[in-house]
């Protein structure tokens, strides 16, 4: 039986010659993301902004959204956004942060409850006060920085410092681009989105380490070939694996995106984007960084030969 081969054997794609194009593209996308982040900004959800989200399901299968919007906006609790999600009678109501702090938020919810009354089932209510939202944002940023630091140390310990720098630059590139994705799509950015980004970091590092591992091995094997050609060879050798793994991850993510329900759709979409960005980044950013930071071909020679191999021999 012939098996499915997505990538032919013995590919010789000159990735490092392509870096003259891909590296600037990655840099451009990252810079654009940062610019957009400050110029436009993501659509922060209540986790980071504070405020209230209510999800209701009306008994009427075709509710009058305009009427609901009108009656809620007459309550004197600021601008109330009303939109359907999924089904026509699943409605998401967003209320901004109230001027009177936490107590005022509770009062606002009370008003909405009375206004809606028995006409709908309350499926979800989330209220985040101004103090908590600040803390959540801080903790998220802290988690990201600590992750980066811990991984840099591990990679430095297992490889060379150039690899540590490269993996961090590559992961940062993925994070920045995923932020950019949130700005461009204006999907709500909340704690779950942060989880998506942090997961993408993990995935990106995983992928980078696999590529680096192969580069290290190739470095030891061929001493006379230039670094660029070595890296090309390593990436081409791993191309089959990279494509297959990306495929299976994307298959899993797409099934989550399609069937996983409304609640985590945005989360999965960001992950799908992140996985693609991660693959791009580990080939087009992480690998060339090694050249830019002057990794020498003999850097690996004084290290123990079988380092990184399986701990046990059968």
């Amino acid at each position, binding site marked *: 039986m012939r098996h499915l081969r997505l990538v032919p054997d013995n590919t010789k794609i000159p990735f490092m010659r392509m870096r003259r194009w891909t590296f600037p593209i990655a840099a451009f996308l990252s810079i654009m993301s940062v610019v957009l982040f400050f110029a436009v900004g993501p659509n922060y959800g209540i986790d980071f902004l504070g405020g209230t989200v209510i999800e209701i399901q009306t008994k009427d299968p075709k509710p009058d959204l305009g009427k609901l919007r009108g009656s809620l906006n007459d309550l004197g609790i600021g601008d109330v956004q009303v939109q359907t999600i999924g089904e026509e009678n699943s409605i998401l109501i967003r209320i901004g942060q109230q001027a009177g702090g936490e107590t005022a938020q509770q009062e606002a919810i009370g008003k909405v409850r009375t206004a809606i009354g028995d006409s709908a089932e309350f499926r979800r209510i989330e209220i985040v006060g101004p103090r908590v939202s600040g803390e959540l944002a801080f903790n998220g940023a802290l988690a990201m920085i600590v992750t980066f630091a811990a991984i840099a140390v591990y990679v430095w310990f297992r490889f060379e410092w150039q690899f540590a720098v490269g993996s961090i630059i590559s992961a940062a590139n993925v994070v920045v681009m995923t932020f950019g994705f949130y700005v461009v799509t204006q999907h709500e950015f909340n704690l779950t989105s942060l989880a998506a980004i942090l997961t993408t970091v993990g995935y990106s590092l995983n992928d980078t*380490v696999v590529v680096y591992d192969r580069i290290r091995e190739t470095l030891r094997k061929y001493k006379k070939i230039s670094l660029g050609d070595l890296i090309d060879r390593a990436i081409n050798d791993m191309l089959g*694996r990279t494509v297959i*793994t990306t495929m299976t*991850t994307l298959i899993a993510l797409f099934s989550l995106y399609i069937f996983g329900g409304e609640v985590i759709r945005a989360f999965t979409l960001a992950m799908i984007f992140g996985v693609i960005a991660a693959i791009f980044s580990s080939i087009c950013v992480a690998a060339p960084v090694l050249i830019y930071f002057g990794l020498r071909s003999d850097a690996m020679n004084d290290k123990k030969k079988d380092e990184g191999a*399986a701990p046990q021999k059968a």
Partner: protein
Amino acid sequence: MLHFTRWKMIGILAIVLVGILAAVPNLFSKETVDSWPSWVPKRQMVLGLDLQGGAYLLYEVDKQDYVQRRLRTLVSEIRKAMLQEPRIGYSGLGVQGQGVQLRIRDTSQLDLVQKRLQPLQNPLGNSLLGGTAINEFDLTVGSDGLVQMSYSEAGLTQRIRQIVDQSIEVIARRIDQLGTVEPSIQRQGQDRILVEAPGLGDPERLKSLVGQTAQLTFHLVDSSFQTGQAEPQRKPGTIVLPGQDNPNVQYVLEETPLITGEDLTDAQATFDQRSNEPVVSFRLTTGGAQTFGDVTQKNVNRAFAIVLDDKVISAPVIREPILGGSGQISGSFSVQSANDLAILLRAGSLPAKLTIVEERNVGPGLGADSIRAGKIAAIIGTAAVCAFMIATYGVLGWIANIAVVVNVIMIFGIVTLLGATLSLPGIAGVIITVGTAVDSNVLIYERIREEYRSGRSAIASIDAGFHRALGTILDANVTTLIAALVLFYLGSGPIRGFAVTHAIGVATTMFTAFTFTRLLVALWVRWRRPTKITL
């Protein structure tokens, strides 16, 4: 790499079996599992509030409000202390920022002032670190007669800690009385309390029970004013409070309460015998009964106000002395509100006002939908990945799939054993693990393929493939594991929910890659003795 001793084989299979068995109870309903014999593992997964529905309420002690109240009490305590014989003349007694200050007229009395005010500093017990007692208030007596009692940073922090502890007890008692829900109540940080009530769809009743201070006091109504009159000017020693039902009605009351909630021994919701309205009947302690008896005897035909959290519930006129130490509170209650008030009075009042700083409620309907969607996505995702693997690798694809399925079951088993909470992001974590767990197999197989193409024999290729790929798998997964662990320790809510299953997933992935997959491949090699590899 392909040789396993018998004991190693048994060990690997035993671990896999334990993981699978731990996951089994989750396939059955709670009732079925309960009916099993006692030696069978019965533990089931704890579902997060987002999956089973429930309420998450984060309360914070209202520091500002507490300090203001406490300082007002301190002012009247100081006033009383100064009035003792011999009297100490003072002026300008009042709240100043985080403290109280006053000026003593006769500076020769300063030693006496020091002695009288010292007991009001209120030692708060030993601090955890130093072992020295922290006072709630710092006392400074200036030689010019300026006296200040104010909160120190440490004093306030310690006091807030105590308040949180007391509040947790009170809340636990209140919820206990409710009987129907079993929420968890935990301290969170310095000044917060987290109440989680799984399965509770509508938390309004819980909120009204938990969040109410329930400070009950009885005050005499100042008779120089007509009840119900809004009268801004008042004598010193009186307070003006609004009515509960109609906030426009103002009552002028004597500031010092006759009795407080502390004097109650019992409270029950009943019906008034004449009007048949729901009321709350109460019994007083012996001391409370005595005071109340004395006061009512002296003040027949005057009104007294029943005040709950600075609102007047009702202000009945004393028709005759109330000597028996029991009475009832009426005030347009419904059966439930009378019942709730009785619970609040029995459980005692909160030492400070609590505000909700974060609240998340998920109705059971949405939770059930999420579980259903998660299941479908997990099944379809796993099936699609499996199909892809078979198309790519044939027989070895089947082995990879067995490993992946075992992997997923083991994740659920470990989550169950650890008592970790499975949330919707957690399910996402499992599904992503499916995608990446395959990666370890792909790494191995691609390596085997490469070795074979470089001219080795089939079995030598398989051996070398495992040998070389496991190093890569180790490095790649440790990096991911580091990320997942950091997220677990620093993240909250959905981030943590995701990190739990993702971290466990990475661990099981490494386990299966290093042992189980290798064992399966070894068994296959022993059985088929392949001389060619078609990958």
